[in-house]
């Protein structure tokens, strides 16, 4: 916060009561769109938490053995089954795209139009690869007979949780990819340098939008961290 108006405000814990009681914006130095994205992500956190908690409850309360995920999600590589190979690659792809997004935000604030555009495009392609691999994984499991109500590997609830949780996450990735492509075009066109007005809004474009888009994309990566840990590794 090098904003001069923020320099004089209290720092640390003292800033909480003074910011909240300031009779104006509570989130000082946070553009309204960014605050709204954070509120949205908070509500999305609750949705994903409900899915993961219901998965935990379902898995902990079944008397039938849970499918061994490292076998279910293994992939043959040169004739040798490697456990969780595809999931590991998906994780690395998503982290890579998260990194390129973080750099895109940085270059956006530095008004480096070209680098910002390239990095957003790279992020979008990473997301696209992720969704593609997820589609491959879904079709593989469906061919092996995994259904939302039963599967050949163990407890019948496995399929419904798998399709629901990864499907909801995949939807988030897909929506993110669409927005990344739209914003890549906007950046290349120079909307954020000229302050060109958006399609749905009369507000002038600003590079803070890239940070807001980045928040969403990092959140998608964040959710995958939890899905990877609880659904695939546990």
């Amino acid at each position: 916060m090098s904003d001069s108006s923020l320099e004089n405000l209290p720092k640390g814990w003292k800033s909480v009561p003074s910011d909240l009681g300031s009779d104006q914006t509570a989130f000082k130095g946070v553009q309204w769109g960014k605050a709204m994205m954070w509120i949205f992500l908070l509500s999305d956190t609750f949705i994903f938490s409900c899915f993961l908690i219901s998965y935990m409850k379902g898995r902990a309360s079944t008397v039938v053995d849970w499918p061994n995920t490292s076998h279910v999600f293994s992939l043959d590589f040169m004739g040798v089954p490697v456990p969780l190979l595809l999931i590991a690659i998906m994780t690395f792809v998503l982290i890579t795209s998260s990194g390129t997004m973080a750099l895109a935000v940085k270059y956006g604030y530095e008004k480096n139009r070209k680098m910002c555009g390239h990095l957003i495009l790279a992020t979008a392609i990473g997301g696209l690869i992720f969704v593609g691999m997820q589609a491959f994984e879904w079709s593989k499991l469906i061919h092996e007979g995994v259904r939302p109500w039963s599967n050949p590997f163990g407890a019948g609830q496995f399929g419904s949780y798998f399709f629901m949780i990864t499907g909801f996450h995949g939807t988030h990735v897909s929506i993110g990819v669409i927005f990344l492509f739209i914003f890549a075009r906007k950046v290349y066109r120079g909307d954020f340098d000229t302050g060109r007005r958006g399609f749905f809004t009369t507000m002038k474009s600003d590079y803070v939008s890239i940070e807001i888009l980045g928040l969403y994309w990092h959140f998608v990566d964040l959710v995958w961290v939890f899905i990877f840990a609880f659904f695939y590794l546990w």
Partner: protein
Amino acid sequence: MSENTEIDKNKEKPAQTHKIGIYLWIWGLLFVLSFFSYMVDWYQFQGILRWSLILFFMFLKAGLIMAFFMHLFWERYTLVNVLLWPMTAIACFVGLMVAEAKYTFFSRLIYFVLGG
């Protein structure tokens, strides 16, 4: 006039950018931590060791992403508090459902497996 205030509102943002090194470091750390959590499965650690390692790497990765990629480390405490305190509600919910799952599990054992 109204246009000027609109621009000024949009300017209300952290003007500072961070050195590229910090992003690359976090990026690298995330790769390493993901690799480690994959190794937990690779070496088939079981029991408490497996679960604690999974949780440790998971929370470390989540913390790094939120703090640095999502810039929470640099935000004012008001926003951080508003975002993190609701997580205690999720923790409570997890606790409730663990108890509920145990109850369902033992009911099923008694009525389905042992036959009442």
